[in-house]
């Protein structure tokens, strides 16, 4: 990670990390306010304020509290989840390209969800709380498969092989997904297609309830494990030399990352790039120490996805662009820029 030679982190002032986290927090508040004012229905900032203080019309309350706010909270949670998951995966595999989407974990989770949609009629009501669990199972199975395929007794987990096998598995799963999707009736297919593009479609407090426990437990847990991640990031031999129970810790952290990604996929579909760019941005800003890197990832991921979802709602009104597409449109050029810069 030493090639990021002139990052803001290295030019930092004292107390940089804390300042940065506060700035990110403030930015999130700003975007939340903007997002509350963005949508099909015109709500002026004063009307929003009015409604927030509990005095709006029933219609305004409905829009703000039942449609916009849950979506905002879900964007923040999903963004944070993907970014933290990506950060853990990148550190574990010591590969900057690792993230839930490239490793096929998102695809596995998505496949489980699509299987469910295809074979269980839409009328069954239990699906909201079932989806995270299903996605989790799919993500877990895929991760296990990739781990088994990429692991070699002599050399341990090779970072390159992990990513290559992940990409291959993801391609296979996507092919199956397509076959399955082609057999769906048009309306289900449309749902699946939009879902695969990554749309924050679960604009409902129950989705927040379904997702919140995962984020609230797993993100702090990974931050608690920050020192282990710092050590594992040095490579297997060094970590073992430093006295870390490498295999056990790695499995535990891998499971954490997979669970985070699975829970997020179940609510938002396959949003890539957040898990890739979030950690990269965060690392440039706050450096490689996971104690501060992981919280920065969570905040940046949330900020990215919320911004993307807000833009997606606004650019082509009245139709919406899935947040995943917006993230990719913003994310790809930035990522190319990063690559070009790190070469030079």
């Amino acid at each position: 990670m030493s090639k990021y030679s002139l990052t803001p982190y290295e030019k930092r002032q004292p107390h940089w990390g804390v300042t940065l986290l506060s700035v990110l927090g403030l930015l999130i508040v700003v975007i939340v306010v903007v997002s509350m004012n963005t949508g099909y229905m015109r709500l002026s900032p004063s009307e929003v304020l009015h409604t927030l203080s509990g005095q709006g019309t029933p219609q305004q309350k409905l829009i703000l509290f039942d449609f916009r706010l849950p979506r905002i909270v879900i964007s923040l949670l999903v963004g944070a989840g993907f970014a933290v998951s990506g950060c853990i995966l990148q550190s574990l595999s010591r590969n900057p390209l690792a993230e839930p989407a490239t490793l096929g974990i998102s695809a596995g989770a998505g496949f489980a969800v699509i299987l469910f949609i295809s074979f269980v009629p839409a009328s069954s009501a239990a699906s909201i709380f079932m989806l995270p669990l299903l996605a989790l199972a799919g993500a877990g199975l895929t991760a296990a498969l990739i781990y088994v395929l990429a692991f070699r007794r002599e050399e341990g987990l090779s970072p390159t092989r992990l990513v290559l096998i992940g990409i291959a598995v993801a391609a296979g799963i996507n092919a199956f997904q397509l076959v399955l999707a082609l057999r769906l009736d048009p309306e289900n297919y449309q749902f699946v297609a939009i879902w695969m593009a990554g749309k924050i479609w679960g604009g409902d407090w129950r989705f927040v309830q379904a997702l919140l426990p995962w984020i609230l437990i797993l993100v702090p847990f990974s931050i608690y494990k920050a020192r282990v991640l710092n050590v594992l990031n040095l490579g297997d031999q060094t970590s073992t030399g430093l006295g870390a129970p490498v295999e056990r810790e790695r499995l535990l952290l891998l499971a954490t990352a997979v669970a985070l990604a699975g829970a997020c996929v179940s609510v938002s579909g396959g949003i890539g790039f957040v898990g890739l760019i979030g950690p990269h941005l965060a690392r440039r800003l706050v450096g490689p120490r996971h104690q501060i890197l992981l919280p920065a990832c969570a905040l940046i991921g949330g900020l990215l996805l919320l911004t993307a979802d807000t833009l997606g709602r606004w650019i082509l009104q009245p139709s919406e662009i899935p947040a995943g597409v917006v993230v990719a449109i913003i994310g790809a050029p930035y990522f190319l820029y990063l690559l070009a810069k790190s070469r030079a």
Partner: protein
Amino acid sequence: MVSSKTMKISGRKWVGAGCMAMILFLSACGSNNTADTANSGSAATTAPSAAATTAPSEPKTVTDSMGHKVTVPANPQRVLGSYLEDQLVTLGVTPVAQWSVANGIQDYLSAELKDVPTISYDLPLEAVTSFAPDFIIVGSESSVQNGLYDQLNKVAPTYVLGNEINKNWRKGLTTIGELLGKSAEAEQAIKNYDQKAAEAKGKLTGAVGSQSAAVLWLVQKNFFLVDETQASGSVLYTDLGMTPPNLVTEIPADQKAAWNPVSLEKLSELTADHIFLVNSDKAEGSEILNSAIWKGIPAVKAGHVYELSSTGSWLYSGANANGKTIDDVLKLLVK
């Protein structure tokens, strides 16, 4: 803001504090909301009942195809039934908004729905709210899955017809008629349609007997064949007594869709006496119709191809659409 003493606290504690703040913020959002949801929910349900005081009948509670208990306002004034406009118009109800996709609306209803604003097919919640409907009817279960139903139901009582009923326009019309207190109109409309169809069948049999006819839809260089029981297919084969062509009857039952894709090569085996061609590619030139294979199809050779505008009723179902389809058939085949 931050004293030098607190700065010495290790990074990990700061991180912990940050998490706590985030958790508190989020959970505050959550708990606020539950109270407000309840508020807005009750507000939404009081609005229609206020309107009901002026109406003669009482609001009634019914169960829809997904098992929801739905309280239908006594005399709904602002009905939203996306893609059910044919049924609503037949019953004399003007919806508050009409179905639309990026490239159009149901053109054959443009006279009846002239001043009705459009709403996107996927029912964006804020758009639905902006029309302030007092009753929402949804056609298919799958269009409101994964929580969308509950969201719509917060805007106004929402009734899901379900595929079983929706794919048969007679059943759909009867059900919607019952919901809106217009059963008599629904019954009358079906009776009128059946009578019109019977008369047309008489004329048609006199002109062409029970010859076979195919309905082909050309869109983006692909052909689709209508199913026997859907849209213009049900009109031709069930109501007017024409014979479905070989390619339609050969489709295995478990692979049937309303519109079945068929390749140009496969079309060369089509033995229909007549082809009704709904051409959505006219603007793009529809070059596929100049191909040798197309020109080799027996009905094409015989000059029995009737091109229909994509703005017509042939892609749709309903008393109104099917009536217009019958008019087209008579105009084209009964000279």
